């Protein structure tokens, strides 16, 4: 069976859950091979092996980390030429989507972004995407070249299947042209200690209705072990960081449970949360459009409803 390349998402060898998900998908399409960028492959190997990577292509070249996107595209191009894969799967991050875009041009291949399902079909690999703020689903195939597909997180449960994870070093010479945009500095952001927004099973979000006081939202989130999200209105007001914004120009989340507190439910916000399994809203205004989406809604003040719910949940637990 042909190889299916999976770009590994990791932080210094710590493999992220999306990689296990992509390896699981890759096994249904062919023989998974991981592509690892960086120096610490030994830290990553056990987990890559656990989820079925037969091979691990390793590119350990500082240029890929010091310049934006173009070198990663060249590195992936080199592996594609070596492996002639049946498909290339990448976690759907902004960085990866841009690298995939360049790879598509280099390899004259069709590109599909933000897939929520990837299956083997009669006409090759078939994908499902959610479009127009989640109001439609679209099935698409790639008709030219090697299907290059970026896949959203949480779309399949990762399942283990032991494989060899044989390391194959790939020597990549990054061209001067690809070194045009230098990453001159990196500033680490403060960690909240809460789960990552796009990976969390539960997300509790606050909007303009918080009036800038996110404490009831955060306390409720912590009681449920949830990530905290925010509407753009709350972000624009400076109440919460942009990296927590849910919506069209923020994160697209699809958790088991989404709680919107003091959020009206504008189309651009819906675009980031409409596909959540269960949706709850708390809003003072019974006419708020968010209520059209909910499985359960409370017309009320979030400053009384959330603390009461927090207490009731804590009581039920103890």
């Amino acid at each position: 069976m042909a190889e299916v390349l999976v770009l590994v998402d990791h932080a210094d060898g710590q493999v992220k859950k999306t990689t296990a998900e992509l390896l699981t998908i890759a096994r249904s399409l062919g023989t998974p091979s991981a592509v690892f960028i960086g120096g610490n492959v030994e830290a990553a190997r056990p987990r890559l092996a656990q989820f079925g990577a037969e091979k691990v292509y390793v590119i350990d070249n500082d240029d890929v980390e010091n310049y934006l996107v173009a070198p990663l595209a060249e590195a992936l191009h080199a592996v594609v030429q070596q492996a002639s894969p049946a498909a290339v799967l990448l976690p759907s991050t902004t960085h990866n989507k841009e690298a995939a875009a360049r790879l598509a041009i280099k390899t004259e291949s069709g590109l599909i972004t933000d897939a929520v399902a990837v299956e083997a079909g009669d006409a090759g690999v078939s994908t499902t995407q959610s479009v127009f703020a989640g109001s439609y689903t679209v099935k698409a195939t790639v008709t030219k070249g090697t299907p290059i597909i970026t896949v959203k997180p949480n779309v399949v449960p990762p399942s283990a299947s032991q494989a060899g994870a044989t390391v194959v070093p790939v020597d990549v010479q990054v061209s001067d042209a690809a070194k045009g945009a230098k990453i001159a500095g990196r500033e680490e952001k403060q960690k909240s200690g809460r789960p990552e927004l796009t990976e969390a099973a539960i997300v509790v979000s606050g909007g303009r209705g918080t009036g800038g006081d996110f404490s009831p939202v955060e306390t409720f989130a912590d009681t449920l072990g949830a990530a905290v999200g925010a509407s753009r209105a709350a972000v624009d007001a400076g109440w919460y960081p942009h990296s927590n914004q849910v919506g069209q120009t923020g994160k697209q989340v699809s958790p088991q449970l989404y709680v919107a507190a003091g959020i009206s439910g504008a189309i651009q916000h819906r675009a980031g949360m409409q596909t959540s399994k269960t949706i709850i809203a708390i809003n003072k205004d019974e006419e708020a459009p968010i209520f059209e989406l909910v499985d359960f809604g409370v017309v009320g003040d979030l400053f009384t409803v959330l603390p009461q719910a927090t207490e009731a949940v804590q009581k039920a637990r103890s």
Partner: protein
Amino acid sequence: MNIVVCVKYVPDAQGDRTFNEDNTTDRANVDGLLSELDEYAVEAALKIVEAGEGEVTVVTVGPEQAADALKKALQMGADKAVHVSDEAIHGSDAVATSLVLAEAVKKIGSPDLVLTGLSSTDGTMSVVPAMLAERLGLPQVTQVSTLEVADGTVKGRRDGDAVSESLEASLPALVSVTDQINEPRYPSFKGIMAAKKKPVETWSLADLGVDAGQVGLDAAWTKVESFAQRPPREQGEIVTDEGDGGTKLAEFLAAQKFV
């Protein structure tokens, strides 16, 4: 400083967006407008030119109605516009769109900066900028929420989840900006009047030397096989808080096994 801004005409997200029989996005029978995220790129370009000198050209690839997007950008203050329009372009995917845009940028004349939005509000792929950079051989300084151009260098900040990166490239370069970068202006009355006299050129594929066989639905490297409207979510229970709203919420969570 010559700047080209790529702007897209998209169906209005507030309206009912849908598909044609050939599975392409319906752009003809719905209200459309300049993709809101491209306004930030137009604004960024105007700011740079206003602080120094130069010219802002806006370019779109799209059907007849896409002229509306150009008009809005001209009203905001862009100097001139190019509309690439050709029957054969209908149904093009991002790859083909980037090919046409790249040729249009070359014909406009090598600009110092090519500016784009973060993503189109209909396709929402965020891939055309990287494809353009690849095709034009330009450094890509993409998804930046700050932008500084001085002494032949462009600098910008790219905010990620865990880190913020400071990017740097020499001109010419391709830059895409996020909606965090500025507050796009509304066209003034003066701007609206002035726009009427600004030059708009319309180019066909032949004008760009692009073979019609390389673009359009049949040449696309991806194919939409089918689309389906998501069944509207069924509204669940709505309670009005009468002192027990939080308790009822907790009961719902327990019944759904979240607690």
